[in-house]
């Protein structure tokens, strides 16, 4: 569904992503794991066309999207939940959800999606009229995911959804991701939180300083001593 080939992204003078290739198939949940600064977020931003690609090719559902503008990529059904949530704090919860449905001009579909999102995250229904800035960190993450779902995406790109959240909140975010996966939504999940990410994903890629150093089935990687040493604190 999503195919990235020999992607190179430069950021100022630095080569942040140095020739990586990976793919995500329909219905899969794939994790891209790595420490801070490994180039994970840069990769996502390049896929969403927020950053220019220096070389390489990105395709989605068979179409080359390397040079497609950001808004057109969203229209194709490839939607990102950005790092740090980036909800619109001055808009109400409902208005945030309407922005999520920006590319969708079908009113009844928008309503259906909104009902679904509010069923998925009941807290958003309670807070519908509140300005989004008043939500807690966890609630904001729910809103960020809900907002992305409003466009009926074919595939979600999630950039560190557990960042800055309490362990309980992290757990509920991963529960939601599991639920989405069961609903057949394809996801590419970026995480530093390697254990949870490997638990939920089908396959994973490990990224270090701009390169992919390890890849495989998540169930195998979770037992791999190299992953254990580097990301799982050895003893898990």
């Amino acid at each position, binding site marked *: 569904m999503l195919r990235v080939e020999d992607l190179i992204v430069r950021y100022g003078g630095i080569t942040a992503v140095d020739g990586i290739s990976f793919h995500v198939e329909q219905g899969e949940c794939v994790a891209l794991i790595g420490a801070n600064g490994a180039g994970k977020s840069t990769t996502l931003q390049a896929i969403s066309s927020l950053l220019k690609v220096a070389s390489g090719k990105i395709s989605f559902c068979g179409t080359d999207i390397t040079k497609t503008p950001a808004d057109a990529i969203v229209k194709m059904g490839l*939607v990102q939940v950005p790092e740090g949530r980036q909800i*619109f704090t001055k808009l109400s919860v409902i*208005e945030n959800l309407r*922005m999520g449905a920006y590319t969708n001009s079908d009113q009844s579909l928008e309503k259906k999606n909104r009902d679904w999102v509010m069923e998925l995250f009941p807290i958003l229904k309670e807070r519908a009229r509140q300005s989004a800035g008043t939500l807690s960190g966890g609630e904001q993450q729910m809103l960020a995911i809900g*907002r992305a779902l409003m466009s009926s995406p074919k595939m979600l790109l999630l950039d560190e959804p557990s960042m800055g959240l309490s362990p309980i909140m992290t757990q509920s975010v991963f529960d939601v991701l599991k639920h989405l996966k069961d609903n057949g939504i394809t996801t590419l999940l970026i995480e530093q939180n390697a254990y949870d990410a490997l638990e939920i994903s089908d396959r994973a890629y490990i990224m270090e300083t701009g390169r992919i150093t390890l890849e495989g089935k998540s169930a195998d990687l979770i037992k791999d001593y190299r992953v254990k040493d580097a990301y799982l604190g050895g003893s898990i």
Partner: protein
Amino acid sequence: MTTSFILGMLMSGLKLGSIYAIVAIGYSIVYGILRLINFAHGDIMTVGVYMILVLMNKAGVPLFASVILSMGFSVVVGLLIERLAYRPIRDASEEATLISSLAVSSLLQNILQMVFSAQREPFILPTFLTESHKYGIISLSLINIITFIVTAIFLVTLYFVLTKTKIGIAMRACSENMKASRLMGVSINKVVMFSFAIGSALAVIAGLLLAGEYKTVYPTLGFVPGLKAFCAAVIGGIGSLGGAVAGAFIIGVAEMLFAGLAPTSMTAYRDAFVFLLMVIVLLFRPNGIFGSTEGERS
């Protein structure tokens, strides 16, 4: 000094304030989205007035139709300016775009001067619009009443657009976080063009009211009122639309009260007074009266 004199001054102030408000909102909308102070905004006003003049005098088009056509023309000019002068340097620093907008402002004034000459041309609205009627102790002309009504209708409509329509919510979303807006599938160019179109169309209305008041038009007509509207937006807190309107009325009333109450030798300094007012407000409220205290957009 009689009550009716003061009331008259207040009314003139409110009238001037509503003209400033329409222009200030144009500044504020564009600033909110692009962090661009578009100094050419006041000159779009002048372009609009000249267009009305040409259509009425040279082509014999009735006033109302001239205004509508001129609005269309000014929207095209506004969009062209955005496309040619601002879009190519959108990612440059705020200073660069600001200087660019000053250049566009100067360019528009010079083009008008080349096409029409620097002379003042009479701009006379039909008398039924401008003759005064007494209502109790205040006197108002039809154009005054129309000014208030137009401003009110426009503010309500804008509020509706910004809170109920997708493009309006997208404008607010862009002014808070452009990157996240792009991730929602919002086309930034579309939103920017929409805000320039609104600003330019409104500038024509403001220009019409202003030229009707001055009974004349000249190439730099819109520049100083444009600057004052900018002051209004700054006093209110630039980027805040409610602030822009409040700032506009504060400036309009303060300016007319100064003009009416200051010694005759001082009244020539009414423009300076407005700018001084802005300096004083900024000394105490650097973000304006209603401005947010937050820093730059992420």
